[in-house]
Structures are given as structure tokens and as C-alpha cells.
């Protein structure tokens, strides 16, 4: 079955029937190409959006203070809600089920200098748990700890980008060095890496919130409370948020239904929304993809049927000079399989090539990056088309092989 001679016979037939070969091959290559592009676009979109969610635990909840928008117990609207350490403590003690919790103070960008180098970086006072909530990686030293908070230590954990702009030349070690933050010396205890898409998040400096309140604020004000919900379900997480709202509403006397008194950002909910969206998109892509493959199958089947009809006379000639029916079937099927596999491969290469080109030349935008196709799916689709081509060839080939040579030769 696999003698070289047979392949030469197939090769010479293919070479001498270029249009037929092209038409058969084209429908297969096109089907596979479109499928790859479709799958690639879908994954590009998904990767793009996933990128948006990088940096920060997917089960994180961030609660920031705002202004009231509803009248409540005789109080006017437009009151500024100000969080304090008390709020942090109340949530910590009355909300159950959280995994990590931290308060934050927003001090904005501050000039931070080391020797002659300086820059403006975002100062972010927080609790030790914030490192987990933000999902940063400590690449040198450590993150803040409980003792830092308790003893109001002047320590800082700086971003990689901060380190690279302050420590240049021979000064490559940052750990243990002192940087000046608004004129106050802080000792660097760690360097972190943040995987956020946003470059600014690499340029942060984390310091103990207790120290910041004492050194820069002189009060017990905080701006944000965030926690992770552990492995709580969506409903349990919503309960935690409700409970937090209730605690804060009571402490600051605002309507619990006032959505502007405090702003809650539940990342998990956002992630869930997008997961649902992408489930929809994926379904849509699959429907179109399957449609494309079916179109390819129909195309190949059609052409194979025409091919067999066109070759009826040749089959008659071959039979009259001693071709067995099986050899006729094998000839047509092998030809079909060779053409569809080769064309499928071309479609695969072109599709993957185009995706590579897009990924390389097109700057990753907000919602589209790294389009990639699932290779095993593409291979399966190719196999399916080959099978379809073979099946589409098989039945007419069987019929043709059964035709008596005298009938095949009769049409003139």
C-alpha cells in the first residue's frame, strides 16, 4: 500500500490536474485558516482582557470612602465620609470569612531621593496584608510586617522600577539603604515586582500605615479598606461586602443603600462578568468555527464527487487494462487524503503565521494581545477535514470502482 510507485502515481496525477487539486485543497486550507484566525482572535481578546485583571487578587474587595447621595436621619446629602483606623478595626472584628485585610492611606506622589538620584513616586502606606491582596512578588528582602506597624518603623518596600531609577552604577544593592521621603529617612527592607499592566504600579513605595499617619498626616485617617474573600463563594463574598457596608453605614450614619457614600469594587464580580462574556464569545467562535469546518467538508465532498465523475472514463480505462476495483478506490482516496492533509497543513501554517505576525507587529492594545490558537484543536479540525475528504471520496470511488468498464468507457 505504501510503495513509492503508488505515491509517484498519485504525485503525477496531482501535478497534472492542478486546478482540481487547487480547488480541493483550497476549501480545506481556507477552512483551517479561518478556524485558526477565529480561535486566535478569541484568545487574543481573552488574553487582552485577562491582562487588565493582572495585579491584585481576583478575590479582592476594595472599599473607598465617598460622598453621601441620600438624605439619612436628617443629615444632608454630599457629606464627605472619612474612614479612620476605627473603621478598619470594626470591619476586621465584625466581618467574618475574610482572608487578608489592609487599610490604605493615599498620599499621592512624593519626591523620594537617594544620594543624588531622586524621583517622584507613589507613596502607598498600608498594612502587611496588602502585599497579598495586591499579589506582588518580593524579589529582594521582605514585605512590611506587624512589628513595622506596631513600632512605627521607618521602613519601605520599593518597586523594581523605583530601585532602578534610584540605584544606578555601582550602587546596585538597595536593601538596608536609606532613602529620603519628603525629607524623612526610610530604610529599604524589600524590593517588589508587580505584574500589573499599569506601569505606575511598579513605581510604588509601600510603607507602614502607622508610620505614615504619624509622620505625614498626624491623624488616624485612612482612605481605603481592602480584603480578600479567601475561598468564599460569590454569595458568601457578597455577604461579607454587605456586612462591611452595614458596619460602615452605622459608624458614619449613612443609608446602607447609598451607593456613593462608599465605593465598593469587587474584583471577583468583574472577573465573573468577563468570564461569562468570554464563555459567550467562545461559544460564538465555536459555532462559527464548526460552520466553517462544515463548509469545508461540503466543499471537499462536492469536489470529490465531481472528481470521481470526471475520472469515470479514466477509471474505465484503468479497469480495462487490469486495475482491480480496490486499486481504483485506493488511488482516489489516497489522492484525496494527500491533497487534504497537505492543504490543511498549509492552512495551519498560514493561519498560525498570520497570528504570529499580528502578535509581533501589532502593539498589544487594551483589549487584544497575544492571539494564539489552540494547536490541538487546529490539528483535530485538519484531521476531520481529511476524514471528510476521504469519506466524500470513498462512496463515489466505490461506485466508480463497481461500474463495469464497458459502461465507463461508453460515454463519449
Amino acid at each position: 500500500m505504501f510503495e513509492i510507485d503508488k505515491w509517484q502515481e498519485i504525485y503525477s496525477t496531482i501535478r497534472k490536474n492542478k486546478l482540481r487539486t487547487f480547488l480541493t485543497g483550497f476549501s480545506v486550507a481556507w477552512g483551517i485558516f479561518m478556524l485558526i484566525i477565529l480561535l486566535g482572535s478569541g484568545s487574543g481578546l481573552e488574553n487582552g482582557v485577562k491582562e487588565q485583571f493582572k495585579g491584585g487578587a481576583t478575590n479582592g474587595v476594595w472599599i473607598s470612602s465617598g460622598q453621601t447621595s441620600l438624605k439619612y436621619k436628617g443629615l444632608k446629602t454630599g457629606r464627605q465620609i472619612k474612614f479612620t483606623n476605627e473603621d478598619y478595626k470594626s470591619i476586621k472584628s465584625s466581618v467574618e470569612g475574610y482572608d487578608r485585610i489592609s487599610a490604605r492611606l493615599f498620599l499621592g506622589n512624593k519626591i523620594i531621593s537617594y544620594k543624588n538620584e531622586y524621583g517622584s513616586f507613589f507613596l502607598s502606606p498600608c498594612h502587611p496584608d496588602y502585599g497579598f491582596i495586591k499579589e506582588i512578588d518580593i524579589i529582594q528582602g521582605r514585605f512590611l510586617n506587624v512589628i513595622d506597624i506596631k513600632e512605627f518603623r521607618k521602613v519601605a518596600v520599593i518597586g523594581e522600577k523605583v530601585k532602578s531609577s534610584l540605584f544606578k552604577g555601582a550602587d546596585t544593592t538597595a536593601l538596608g539603604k536609606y532613602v529620603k521621603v519628603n525629607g524623612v529617612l526610610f530604610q529599604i527592607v524589600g524590593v517588589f515586582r508587580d505584574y500589573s499592566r499599569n506601569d505606575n504600579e511598579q513605581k510604588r513605595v509601600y510603607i507602614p500605615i502607622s508610620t505614615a499617619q504619624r509622620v505625614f498626616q498626624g491623624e488616624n485617617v485612612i482612605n481605603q479598606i481592602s480584603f480578600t474573600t479567601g475561598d468564599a463563594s460569590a454569595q458568601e463574598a457578597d455577604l461579607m461586602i454587605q456586612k462591611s457596608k452595614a458596619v460602615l453605614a452605622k459608624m458614619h450614619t449613612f443609608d446602607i443603600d447609598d451607593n456613593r457614600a462608599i465605593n465598593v469594587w469587587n474584583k471577583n464580580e468583574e472577573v465573573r462578568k468577563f468570564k461569562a462574556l468570554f464563555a459567550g464569545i467562545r461559544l460564538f467562535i465555536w459555532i462559527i468555527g464548526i460552520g466553517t469546518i462544515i463548509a469545508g467538508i461540503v466543499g471537499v465532498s462536492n469536489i470529490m464527487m465531481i472528481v470521481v465523475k470526471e475520472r469515470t472514463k479514466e477509471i474505465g480505462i484503468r479497469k480495462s487494462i487490469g486495475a482491480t476495483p480496490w486499486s481504483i478506490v485506493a488511488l482516489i482516496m489516497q489522492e484525496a487524503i494527500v491533497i487534504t492533509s497537505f492543504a490543511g497543513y498549509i492552512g495551519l501554517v498560514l493561519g498560525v503565521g498570520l497570528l504570529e505576525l499580528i502578535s509581533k507587529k501589532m502593539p498589544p492594545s487594551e483589549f487584544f494581545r497575544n492571539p494564539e490558537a489552540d494547536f490541538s484543536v487546529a490539528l483535530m479540525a485538519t484531521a476531520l477535514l481529511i476524514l471528510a475528504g476521504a469519506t466524500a471520496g470513498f462512496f463515489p470511488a466505490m461506485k466508480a470502482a463497481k461500474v463495469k468498464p464497458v459502461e465507463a468507457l461508453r460515454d463519449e
Partner: protein
Amino acid sequence: MITINKIHKSYVTGQNSLHVLKGIDLNIEAGEMISIMGASGSGKSTLLNILGILDNFDSGAYYLNGLKIDRLTERKAAQLRNKMLGFVFQSFNLVSFKNAMENVALPLYYQDVPRKKRNMIAMEYLERMGLKDWAHHLPNEMSGGQKQRVAIARALIGKPKVILADEPTGALDSTTSLEVMDLLHEINATGITVIIVTHELDIAKRTGKTIRITDGNITEIIKN
């Protein structure tokens, strides 16, 4: 070489049955050159197709070289055609996308002769037909006489015992017809049995024996 007894053949189309051969008896010795004549529709081509195992028959017996031809499998029939028989058709029936050499070599492909060897043998046969220079031409680049000579070369390459020619000169002018007949004579001279179906009297006259068929019966056997 060929013996047939009371061969009957009907073609059934819908409700009509057309009785084409009505009990043909015929004996052809090895090395004979005979012609089968008859009007169109007389059954002469059907007879040739049955002799060539291209078509089956309803009743009767057919012995080819002593072998009973009856309800053969397609595979066996194909092998017999390949080894015993060579066909020459009125419309040449060359494979259009293969050149002369490849067409001639095709029967050897089904005998599993390696490509190089069968192309070499095909070239020998083409040379014998005076078509060496045309070996790499496609059929549509050749004249009718050339195509028929390619077809004859193809019929001969499998070293058959019997050549069956269905109106071999039907599509050719008279000069070329004569050349083709000369060629068939030469082939016959090498000991191969040649059976020619024709409706041209002067072609039939050039064979050893003419069998005339009328309405599915042999009506006359003439020694020329």
C-alpha cells in the same frame, strides 16, 4: 484459444428487455486473426465486450485459454484482462493527462513493475510503433493514427494472448487505417490472436476469417 457456447445476453432497461445475443457459438484458435462484422445494434460490440471480460453474460459458457470465465470476482477479471487481453478502442481511450510513454506503461503499473523499468519497456514499444519522439507528448498533441498506435502499444505491453479491437480504424482516415491494419497483421504474425470488430468490409477482408452477426445470431462465417 477462445470457445463460447450458446451465449445469451439481454440488456434490461426499465420494463423493456433487449435480447442482444441469442445463443452465440464460436471457436477461435490461437494465432487466428478474425473480424466480426455486423450492422449497428447487431450485438457485435457486446460480443467483443463479453470476450474481453468487460461485460458479463446471462447464460452459456466461455472458455478463455482453457479457463472457464463464469462469475469471476472483479479482482480475478482484472488480473485476467491484465495478463491475457489487450484492448484497442475506436476512441483510443488514452488517459488524457498522461503522456504517450506513461499511457503505454500503465498496464505494467498494475503488474507491479517498477516505474523506471516499465517506462523503459514502454519506450521500446513506442519505438517499435515509430513513436519514440512522441513519448513525452500528451494524447491531445497527437494525430488519430499516432494515438491509435500508442493504444496498440499499450495493448501489447502486457504480452497478451488476445488483442481485442473495437472499430480500431473507425476514427481514422483510409491511409492511417491501412497502417493500423498492417500493424495488427504484424502483431498477429507474432502469434497473438487478433479479434477486430468492424463494419467496414475492406477491413474485414484483410483478416483471416469474417464472422457476420445479424440480430444477435451468427449468420455467416467467411474465410477470406
